[in-house]
């Protein structure tokens, strides 16, 4: 004899399409108790129960070899049926040393730290990388499949994995070899120049024009404006700009022309003062050096531009030099200089700003020319030799590019031949 029954008492659908079914126990008459016994069974459109996705079958974690340490690769094997899930959640728990505290939370053993999120990846993925981990620390990892209907049970690694430090970062080997190769070329030609081997460097019009620009300023009785970019001394372009400043200020000292150097970084101001003072000293004009002509304005990009542009319009310098790292302010400066009729020479390695300088300035040092300016202007055999080494490295780069083009073209024409394999080999060597 049936003393009680479960009856269907409510059906409702939510926006995801799942249906909620309310059940009531007929043996309990109190309305409150009925409510307590109610449950929710999510159903699909066919009335079938929708359950949480199954857990991953297994999970493993291993240290990534030849890395900077602190990187562990986590892989897992999904169970059949996880396609209903939307993403995987990967978490980690650090293995604590004795006395560092007990575990917290469900599923966590003693001697483990709290579970923290490593990554959330799409359900199609079967691996993830935990990076920036503390060096030589050990971690357990767990993975959970998540769907709109709930989460699977967790699958945890059986043993802890440790991200070990390595002596060398393997992924950077091609770059390291390239630097060694370029350095070897440069050093070889520096030594060759020291031994007296003649070096010929092509004429760079922009650098030849420096004396003309300074001479023009002297004749017109106007000042020279030198802007060493808007970045600090940790930017190689600023350093390269200061090397040019040393030469320009020496010429200015010899010609008795006034030079003004507004800077947007205090450290650059100090370095520029040292460079200009040394140049005036070398030119035998130490008395003409004016430290206040090299002044700090502001770190703020457009505040600096406002000052320099205003100064240009008011003082009308006869020659303007822009040597360093520039961004959006490049065109504002160069166009203002153009409007006042100044002879303008620019140099930067910011490829996005080069078109603006080319359009608005009389001469522009493009990328490597800017970097070579110091060596070119010094005329010292050592430095000229380094330029020659740079050229040889460029020739090697050109040969590799041509080889890559030939192999890629060959691989496209004959995909079954040896070319694709050779192309892959070259890509592997270059680390791409």
């Amino acid at each position, binding site marked *: 004899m049936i003393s009680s029954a479960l009856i269907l008492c409510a059906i409702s659908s939510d926006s995801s399409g799942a249906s909620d079914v309310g059940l009531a126990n007929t043996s309990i008459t109190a309305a409150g108790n009925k409510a307590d016994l109610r449950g929710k069974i999510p159903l699909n459109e066919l009335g079938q129960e929708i359950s949480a996705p199954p857990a991953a079958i297994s999970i493993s974690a291993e240290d990534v070899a030849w890395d900077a340490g602190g990187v562990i690769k986590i892989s897992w094997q999904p169970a059949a049926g996880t396609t209903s899930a939307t993403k995987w959640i990967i978490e980690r728990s650090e293995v604590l040393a004795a006395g560092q505290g007990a575990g917290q939370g469900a599923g966590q053993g003693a001697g483990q730290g709290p579970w923290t999120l490593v990554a959330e990846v799409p359900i199609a993925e079967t691996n993830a990388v935990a990076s920036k981990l503390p060096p030589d620390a050990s971690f357990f990892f767990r993975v959970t499949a998540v769907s709109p209907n709930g989460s699977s049970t967790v699958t945890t690694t059986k043993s802890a994995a440790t991200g070990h*430090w*390595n002596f*060398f*970062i393997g992924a*950077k080997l091609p770059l*390291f070899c390239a*630097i060694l190769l370029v*350095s070897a070329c440069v*050093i070889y030609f520096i030594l060759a120049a020291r031994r007296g081997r003649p070096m010929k460097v092509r004429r760079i019009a922009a650098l030849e024009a420096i004396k003309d620009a300074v001479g023009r300023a002297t004749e017109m009785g106007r000042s020279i404006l030198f802007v060493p970019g808007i970045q*600090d001394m*940790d930017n*190689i372009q600023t*350093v390269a700009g*200061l*090397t040019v400043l*040393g030469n320009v200020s020496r010429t200015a000292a010899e010609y008795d022309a006034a030079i003004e150097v507004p800077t947007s970084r*205090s*450290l650059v*101001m*100090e*370095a520029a003062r*040292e*460079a*200009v*003072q*040394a*140049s005036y000293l*070398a030119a035998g004009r130490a008395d003409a050096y004016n430290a*206040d002509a090299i*002044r*700090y304005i*502001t770190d*703020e990009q*457009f*505040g600096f*531009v406002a000052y320099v542009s205003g100064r240009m319009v008011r003082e009308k310098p006869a020659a303007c030099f822009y040597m360093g790292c520039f961004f*959006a302010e490049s*065109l*504002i400066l160069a*166009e203002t200089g*153009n409007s006042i009729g100044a002879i303008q020479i620019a140099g930067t*390695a910011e*490829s996005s700003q080069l078109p603006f300088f*080319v*359009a*608005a300035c009389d001469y522009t040092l*493009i990328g*490597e*020319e*800017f*970097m070579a300016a*110091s*060596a070119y*202007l010094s005329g010292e055999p*050592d*430095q000229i030799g*380094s*330029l020659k080494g*740079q050229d040889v490295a*460029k020739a090697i780069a050109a040969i590799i590019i041509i080889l890559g083009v030939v192999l890629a073209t060959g691989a496209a024409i004959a995909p079954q031949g040896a070319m694709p394999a050779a192309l892959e080999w070259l890509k592997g060597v270059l680390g791409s």
Partner: protein
Amino acid sequence: MAEGSARIMKRLVPMWIAIIAGFVMLLSAFFPITESLGETVGEIFNVVAAIAFVLGAGSLAKVNLAKISRRDQGWGYAAITLICFAITLVVGLGKIGVPQSTQFPLLGWSGEKDAEGSIFGWIYEFALVPITSTMFALLAFYVASAAFRAFRAKNLEAILLLSTAFIVLLGRTFAGVVLTGWLPDWASGLRLENLSVYIMQVFNTAGNRAIIIGIALGVTATSLRILLGVDRSWMGSGD
């Protein structure tokens, strides 16, 4: 004797600091064991730059005060600069109007200097940002004037530049689609929007990469010259 010590302090010490710091930074990029050393060098640079800011502020004050005292042309602007500098410094260092940090409610001055409601934050949001935006907006007019000058068809190269720019400009607007959208599929490569993409992806990318490779080699050679002490002109004279 004094000249010798001055040479050591002004030439040799900076040069060796640059050489050692440069090699440490280079090695830290490849050898993890030196990574912390590289970070230390970076932190030292930040500290030195922060100290140098005092020198910069001193220079700013000195130059503008001199201008005011001499009553140079535009000395009023120098006065405004100094007043603004002083106000910003006081409200920033004093954290005037800064609400107490919710994280550390018992500690005085624990709020962020530019937190919402602070005077420093107000100056930044309602004075600095609009002023810098105005300067940035001027760029549009400078681009127009520079383009006008650059695209004058005065020789063959300029004509090529002008033609290319014309195609790219049209191809990136609806005008390009309207003008050449009628071309049949077999000639779709000649549609302005496709020509624009082709120019940017092939010619522009090739030229840009050539420049970037040259820059990379130039940076390497320049760094090497400085690291080896061959180029000392960044300190002024090469002597």
